[in-house]
């Protein structure tokens, strides 16, 4: 899809206005009010907080964090959310949002650091994280047994340098890992010329590398950092290009097991505005639509997964966090400017959620499982 012009784009961008001044309907209030979301944030006092809120932007719980966090994941059977420290942090706070108390603060093993992402198996038994072990070049998939006081019970290779986000497949055995490919010293990148990002499928019990796919060689500097997995196992990737900002490279891709990575085309008029950086990827509740954020371009791109085509770009200043909402094609988006929105892919609308929370929302927004 290339035949769009700037005016059309702007029209898409703010299919919003109407929205900006429109009121959320009563039905939507009922719907959104029952949904729970969580995100890390920084408040005006400069400190970092975990916030839980409902789909109307109303605070449910908050927790002061020891440092900046990245992804928040929820426990499927306990009223817990886990706040994972941002790379190269070392702590995970497990917070009970019903009692408002800290259940436990985990520390990574000596010398290890986290990459900001985690998953909990749907039976609530295991916590899995991507981590860096000083003596190993490739990343580590660390498995903790929650029932045994979060004791580390297994550790596997992620089969690549610089793992970042990870998602558990529906079979609850296969972990899909985005190996960004970037070797870092602190936060300094030291291997950009030779980096080799990959998507790895790893058996969480045996550590067996079940499948590993790479981008075509010319895109080896497109770091695969964030991903989501659809109900049918399709993976969407958000990438960050480390080469020249003027290069024309894909920033979004899809993958299905047994196939090659399918890079998606962003219309040139929009691609140039993304500043080579996508921040989060998220399927909707059906897997038919996806949203990928581009905070440096102040845009959320929307994708039709059935046709594997770009669908729209909607302007959200410094927007990065995306979570699926209950309805098909609907997403909740958070921004570094403290805004929350509902985006609807089918109606092409952006509706501001009138939150009173005054924080900068960090990169990722998570939908919280109801227990």
């Amino acid at each position, binding site marked *: 899809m290339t035949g769009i012009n*700037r*005016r059309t784009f*702007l*029209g898409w*961008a*703010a*299919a*919003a*206005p*109407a929205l*900006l*001044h429109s009121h959320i309907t009563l039905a939507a209030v009922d719907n959104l009010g029952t949904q729970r979301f969580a995100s890390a944030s*920084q408040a*005006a*006092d400069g400190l970092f907080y975990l916030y839980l809120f409902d789909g109307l932007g109303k605070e449910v719980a908050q927790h002061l964090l020891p440092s900046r966090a*990245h992804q928040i994941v929820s426990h499927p059977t306990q009223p817990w959310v886990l706040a994972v420290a*941002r*790379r190269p942090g070392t702590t995970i706070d497990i917070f009970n949002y019903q009692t408002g108390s800290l259940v436990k603060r985990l520390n990574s093993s000596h010398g290890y650091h986290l990459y*900001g992402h985690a998953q909990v198996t749907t039976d609530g038994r295991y916590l899995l994280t991507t981590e860096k072990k000083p003596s190993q070049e490739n990343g580590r998939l660390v498995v903790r047994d929650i029932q045994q006081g979060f004791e580390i019970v297994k550790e596997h290779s992620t089969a690549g340098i610089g793992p*970042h986000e990870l998602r558990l497949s529906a079979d609850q055995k296969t972990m899909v890992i985005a190996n960004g490919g970037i070797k870092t010293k602190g936060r300094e990148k030291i291997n950009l010329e030779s980096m080799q990002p990959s998507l790895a499928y790893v058996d969480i019990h045996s550590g067996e590398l079940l499948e590993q796919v790479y981008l075509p060689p010319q895109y080896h500097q497109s770091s695969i*950092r964030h991903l989501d997995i659809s109900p049918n196992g399709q993976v969407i990737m958000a990438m*960050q290009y480390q080469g*020249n*900002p*003027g*290069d*024309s490279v894909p920033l979004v891709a899809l993958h299905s097991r047994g196939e090659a990575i399918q890079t998606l085309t962003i219309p*040139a*008029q929009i*691609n*140039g*505005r993304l500043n080579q*950086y996508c*921040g989060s990827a998220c399927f909707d509740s059906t897997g038919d639509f996806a949203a990928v954020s581009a*905070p*440096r371009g*102040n845009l959320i791109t929307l994708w039709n997964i059935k046709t594997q085509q770009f669908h729209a770009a909607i*302007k959200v*200043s*410094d*927007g*990065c*966090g995306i979570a699926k909402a209950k309805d098909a094609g609907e997403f909740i988006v958070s*921004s*570094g*400017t*403290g*805004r929350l929105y509902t985006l609807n892919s089918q109606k092409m609308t952006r509706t*501001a959620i009138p939150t009173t929370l*005054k*924080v*900068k*929302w*960090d*990169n990722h927004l998570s939908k919280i499982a109801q227990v």
Partner: protein
Amino acid sequence: MLPTGSLTPVLLGVTLFILGAGVVHAASSQAPSEEQWHTLNNAIIEQHVLPRYQHLADNSAVMSQQLARLCATPSSDNLNAAQTSFKTAQASWQGVQHIQFGPVTMLMRNHSLQYWPDKKNTGAKQLKSILKTTDQTFDDEFFRSASISLKGFPALERLLFANNKHIQDSKAVECSLAAAIAQHIHETSLSIQSEWTEEARQISLAGQKVLPGASHVAAYQVYETPSEAATEFMKSLVEPVEAIRDNKLLKPLAASAEESRWKKSESWRSEQSVNNIQQNLAALHELYSGTQPSSVKTLLEAAGDKLNAHAIEAEFNLISEELKNIPAVTQLNVTADTYQTLMHTSDQLKALQGKLAAAMQTLNIQLGFNSRDGD
């Protein structure tokens, strides 16, 4: 070419409703109001952005004409005139290079105009390859598919200043390519300038509610508040300072005059690297305090931080004065004096960066959280 006149007409039929939403920080009671940002945005657009794109369009038109003349009638005089017109047009680009949002980002026009720094030497490789061809037509179709490194000032600079023996042959591919690039730069400039009419309208509409019956205004709002739109201008003011220091000064200067690598500077072939920095700083200075009746400086003063407002002004004046006295670096020879002065400029830029960051806090402007420090 579209007129770049007043924005006032777009306000007809519109009633201003300043939304006042979206302030994340614990807002200082002295931070500018949305109405003040609205006034500043319009002043910046009319007095800073549009005139600078107009200069680029005008000066690139002259450059295109001079290149056509050189190719038609090769001579030393015409080569000199073409080189001079290149320097003037490039200076115009340097004077608006800091605006990195809006139409200039469409189709990567910003990178097309100047693919730099070119870490992999892509421009040289692409140029070498295309110059081997004998039957290439450098038309719109060529530029639609050509490498981005062949479309702008760096490629033209190579042709005009590095391979200038060939360019004085009217039948040489160098000449037709140079003339085509100059024309492409001009057309790109015209497109940016033209599309800023729409961008300006969107910025002007920020925070305004369209009344029923308004016939000519867009039914959507790209910027929710004037301060959101102003944030783009504040990024244009603050972010280039570090980039200039890192890329244009510290990298080519290296650890000493003897170790300096001036070929890493921005426009060493045309000996304009220092002039580029002068143009950049003059533009940032104007963006800071050169608009009327409102400027970033006056807002900062009104917000109660006169001390910093004056310190920033003084820093701009000092840097400008110092840069004025630095001669162009010729023959890649960075003298000890020039090295010392440029390193001092670098230190001053660092100080300016700190002061501007403090100013943004006072003005309650958040330049970016996820966009500037993501993961």
